[in-house]
C-alpha cells in the first residue's frame, strides 16, 4: 500500500509542479456516475467511434482514394487482368494480400453499423425517459447533429471502395441531388467534378470521410461529454435519489474499471464479428461500371429508410414553366428525412411549450408516466420502421413469396395508418401500466397464493412492495392539465384569449388529460395501516380483503 503511494507521489508531484491540476483531478476522480444498463447505450456509441478511428487509421495506410484506371493483378484470381479504379483495386488488395486487412475492414464496417445503431437506441432511451428536458436540450440538439453526421459518415465510408454496389449507391445519391429545383444540376456537377461518375469524387469523398466529418463528430462528442460532466448524469428515481443529488459510483476506480472494461468488451465483440461474420465482400461485386447492376442490392441499414422512401413515394413529377420538378427523389431523399430530423430536434422545445414546464429535471421519467410522449415516440419509430421495411421490399417479396407491388402498396397505406394506431395502443398500454402501479402501491403485489376464508370466500394474498420499489413508484409527479381562463372576466365581459394560447391549452389537456392519479398520502396511509394491521405474519394467513379494487377516480 505504502509502496503504491510512494510511486504515485512522485508522478503526482511531477505533474502538479508543472500544471497544478491536483484539485481538478481529485474532484474529477470522485465524480459520481449512476448505474443503469440503459446508460451504457451511449457508451457503446462512443466506444464504437473510437474503434472506427483505430481501425480506420489502419485502413488508410493501404487504401488509395483514386479513380485512376489500373489493371488488377493481386491474388484474388477472378478479378485478375480486369480494369478497375485504384480505389477498388487497393480495397481488394487490402482484403486479400494484407494480413489483418480484411479483419480490420470488417471490424470497421461492423463498428460503423453498431455506431449508428447505438446512437439510435441511446437516443430512444433519452427520449422515452424525458432526459432531454431542461437543462439538457442543447445536448439533445448536439445528439441529433451527431446522428445526422453519423449517417453521412457511414454513407461516405461505404461509398469509397468504388465497387458495383457502392457505385450504384452514389448513382442514386446523384439522382437525388439532380432533383433539387434550380440548383440540383449545378450541385451535382460541382460535387462530381462534372458528369457522373467522373474521376474526382472518390478522392473528395475520402477527405470528407477521414477528416472533415470525423473531425466535426469528435468536436461534438467532446462538447456532448463536457455538458454531461457539467450537468451531471440523470438518474432513475429510487430511495435517496432526488432532483438535487446524483447517486452512483465514483469515476475512479469503480467507474473507470467498469466503463474502461466495457470499451474492451465492445471492441472484443466487434473483433469477433470482424473475424467470423462476413460483411461487404466487395471482391464479389466487381468494380463499378455505370451500365451494370445487381438485383437485391441493399444499402447499410441506416440508409435503408431513405431507400424505402424512394421505393414508396409516388412518381409525382411536374412541369413548371418549362422546368422539371421531380418530387419522388426530392421528397424521399431530402425533404422527408429533413422534416423527420427537424421534428426530432424540435421535440424538447415543443413539449416544454405544451407542458409549460420550465424547471430543471434530473430524475428520469418512466415512459408509462408520460403516455403521450411515449406514444409519439413509438409513432415516430413506427413511421421510420415502415420506411425501413420499404427499403427491403424486394427481399421481403422473395422471402415470403409475395408480389413486390402489393408490398409497396400495403406500405404506402400503412405508413399513414400504423403510426396513428401504435400511438393509440401505446398510450392505452401506458395508462394501464399506471393503473397497475397505483394498484401495487395501494394493495401490494399479487402473490399467487389463493386462500379460502372460513365463510367459503376465495381471496388472493397480496404482499406489500419493498420500500425501494415504493420510492420509485412514488417519485414522479402527476401534472394537472392546464385550464383556459373563464370565458368571461369578473365584470362579465368576454375574455379575449390569443389563439396560440388556446391551442397550447388544448394540447396541454391532451398531454396530461388521462393521467392516472398517484395515491394521495391519505390513501397510502390507509392502505399501509390496513397492511400493518394484518402484520407481516398475518399476511400469510389473512388475505387482503379488497383485492382488485378499481382505482378511485383522480383526486
Amino acid at each position, binding site marked *: 500500500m505504502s509502496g503504491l503511494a510512494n510511486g504515485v507521489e512522485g508522478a503526482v508531484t511531477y505533474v502538479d509542479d508543472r500544471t497544478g491540476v491536483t484539485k481538478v483531478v481529485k474532484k474529477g476522480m*470522485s465524480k459520481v456516475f449512476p448505474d443503469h444498463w440503459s446508460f451504457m447505450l451511449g457508451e457503446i456509441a462512443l466506444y464504437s467511434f473510437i474503434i472506427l478511428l483505430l481501425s480506420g487509421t489502419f485502413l488508410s495506410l493501404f487504401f488509395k482514394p483514386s479513380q485512376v484506371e489500373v489493371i488488377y493483378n493481386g491474388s484474388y484470381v477472378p478479378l485478375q487482368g480486369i480494369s478497375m479504379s485504384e480505389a477498388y483495386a487497393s480495397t481488394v488488395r487490402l482484403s486479400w494480400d494484407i494480413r489483418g486487412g480484411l479483419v480490420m475492414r470488417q471490424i470497421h464496417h461492423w463498428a460503423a453499423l453498431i455506431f449508428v445503431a447505438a446512437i439510435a437506441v441511446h437516443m430512444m432511451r433519452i427520449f422515452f425517459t424525458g432526459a432531454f428536458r431542461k437543462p439538457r436540450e442543447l445536448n439533445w440538439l448536439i445528439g441529433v447533429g451527431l446522428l445526422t453526421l453519423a449517417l453521412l459518415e457511414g454513407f461516405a465510408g461505404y461509398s469509397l471502395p468504388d465497387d458495383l454496389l457502392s457505385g450504384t449507391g452514389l448513382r442514386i445519391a446523384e439522382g437525388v441531388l439532380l432533383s433539387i429545383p434550380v440548383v440540383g444540376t449545378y450541385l451535382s456537377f460541382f460535387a462530381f467534378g462534372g458528369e457522373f461518375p467522373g474521376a474526382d469524387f472518390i478522392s473528395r469523398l475520402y477527405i470528407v470521410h477521414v477528416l472533415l466529418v470525423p473531425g466535426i463528430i469528435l468536436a461534438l462528442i467532446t462538447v456532448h461529454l463536457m455538458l454531461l460532466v457539467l450537468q451531471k448524469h440523470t438518474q432513475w428515481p429510487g430511495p435517496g435519489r432526488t432532483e438535487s443529488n*446524483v447517486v452512483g459510483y465514483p469515476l475512479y476506480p469503480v467507474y473507470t474499471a467498469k466503463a474502461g472494461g466495457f470499451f474492451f468488451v465492445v*471492441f472484443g465483440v466487434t473483433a469477433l464479428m470482424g473475424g467470423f461474420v462476413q460483411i461487404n465482400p466487395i471482391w464479389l461485386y466487381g468494380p463499378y461500371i455505370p451500365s451494370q447492376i445487381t438485383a437485391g442490392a441493399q444499402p447499410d441499414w441506416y440508409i435503408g429508410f431513405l431507400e424505402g422512401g424512394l421505393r414508396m413515394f409516388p412518381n409525382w413529377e411536374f412541369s413548371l414553366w418549362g422546368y422539371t420538378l*421531380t418530387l419522388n427523389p426530392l421528397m424521399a431523399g431530402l425533404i422527408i428525412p429533413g422534416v423527420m430530423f427537424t421534428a426530432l430536434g424540435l421535440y424538447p422545445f415543443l413539449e416544454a411549450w405544451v407542458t409549460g414546464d420550465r424547471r*430543471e429535471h434530473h430524475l428520469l421519467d418512466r415512459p408509462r408516466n408520460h403516455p403521450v410522449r411515449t406514444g409519439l415516440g413509438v409513432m415516430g419509430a413506427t413511421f421510420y420502421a415502415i420506411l425501413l421495411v420499404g427499403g427491403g421490399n424486394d427481399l421481403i417479396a422473395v422471402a415470403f413469396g409475395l408480389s413486390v407491388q402489393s408490398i409497396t402498396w400495403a406500405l404506402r397505406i400503412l405508413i399513414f395508418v400504423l403510426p396513428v394506431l401504435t400511438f393509440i395502443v401505446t398510450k392505452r398500454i401506458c395508462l394501464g401500466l399506471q393503473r397497475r402501479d397505483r394498484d401495487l402501491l395501494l394493495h401490494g403485489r399479487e402473490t399467487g397464493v389463493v386462500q379460502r376464508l372460513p365463510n367459503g370466500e376465495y381471496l388472493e394474498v397480496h404482499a406489500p412492495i419493498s420500500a425501494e420499489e415504493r420510492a420509485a413508484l412514488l417519485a414522479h409527479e402527476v401534472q394537472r392539465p392546464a385550464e383556459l381562463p373563464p370565458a368571461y372576466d369578473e365584470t362579465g365581459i368576454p375574455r379575449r384569449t390569443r389563439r396560440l394560447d388556446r391551442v397550447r391549452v388544448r394540447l396541454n389537456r391532451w398531454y396530461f388529460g388521462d393521467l392516472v392519479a398517484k395515491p394521495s398520502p391519505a390513501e397510502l396511509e390507509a392502505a399501509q395501516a390496513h397492511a400493518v394491521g394484518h402484520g407481516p405474519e398475518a399476511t400469510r394467513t389473512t388475505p387482503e380483503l379488497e383485492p382488485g379494487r378499481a382505482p378511485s377516480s383522480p383526486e
Partner: protein
Amino acid sequence: MNPPSSSAPAETSRPEHLASLASEPEIHPSGLPVHRRLTDLDPVAARRAERQVAALFALSALGTVIFLVGYVAFPLGQGTKDPASLVWSNRLLGGGLALSLFCLGAGAIHWARKLMPVEELVEERHPLHSSAAQRAGLVEQLAASGESTGFTRRKLIKRALLPAAGLLALPPLVLLRDLGPLPGRVLRETLWAAGVRVHSDVTNQPLRPEDIPIGGMVPAIPANLKDVPTENGAQLNARAKAALLLVRMEPRQIVSQQGAQWDYQGILAFSKICTHVGCPLGLYEQQTHKMMCPCHQSTFNLADSAKVVFGPAKRHLPQLPLTVDAEGYLVAAAGFAEPVGPSFWERGGA
C-alpha cells in the same frame, strides 16, 4: 446493474415474495439501499473472485498469442495459392483479438463488480445557473463594454463593418466554383447518332439482327465508346449515358413505340438508365415485356413505348431508333430524342 442483493440469508423458508417486508432494513438511514455481496461477507468467495479475474486476464493474453500465431502461420498474397489461408487468417486474427480484448474488459468489470467498493456515493447537484446579481453584472458589463466601443453610436463604423464582414462569406463560395464545369448541354447528349453501330456490352462486337432471338435481351453500347479516352472518367461518363437495352419481340406484339418504325424487325432499343434516379435496368420479364429496375422497382412496358407501369419513375425510357447499315449491322437511325436518365430541373417537358 446493481439490484439490491438479497441480504436475508436462507434462514427462512418463506417464499421470497412473502418475505418482502424483510427487505425494509436494506434501506440505510441515509436513505440509500445497502448493497451486500457474497465477496464482502465471505473471504473464500473473495479469493475465488480474485482467481476468476486473474483467469480472465490470462485468457486475454492467450488471445493475443492466438492473434500473433495467426499472423505468422497464414501468409497471404502471391506467395500462397490457397484461398482458405485468408479465411483462417481472418478467423485467427479476429478471434484472437476478440478473446484478448473481451477478456481484458470482462476481467476489469468482474473485478469492479466483485471486489471494488460497492458503496454508492452521493454528490449534491448545485444549480447550474449563476446568481441573479452575477448575471446582471455580466449583462451590464457586456452592455457597457459594447457602449464604450461606440459601436451603436458611431453609425459609420457599423455601416462599414457589417457589409465588410458579410462580403467575406463570398470568397469561400467563389473558391468552390472550379469544383466542376457548368452543366451546359452535356446531360442531353450521348454518343448515339445516326449510323453509330450497336455493339454488345458483353462481347463488344457489332450486332446483327439475327444475333438477338425473339424474347431475348442484350445490353449494348455504341461502337464509338472505345474511342473515348479513359482519362478523367470520360469513358465511364459516356457509358453512363449511352448504355442501351436491346429486346426483340414479334412485331405484332409491339403495342406502340415512341416513333414510327423505330424498331428493326421487332428489335427495340431503349436507354438502360432508369428515369427515376439513374440505376441501370436489368430485370426483364420476356413474356410480359416488362423491364424492372432492381433498385426501386420502376417498371416499364417495353412493348408499349416503355411507359411506366409501376414504381417511382415518372417518364418512359427514351427509345433509340434502329436500322441496319450496308453491311447488315444494327445501327442507330438517329440519336436519342430526349435526355436519358433521371429528371433534372432544366430538363423541361413532362
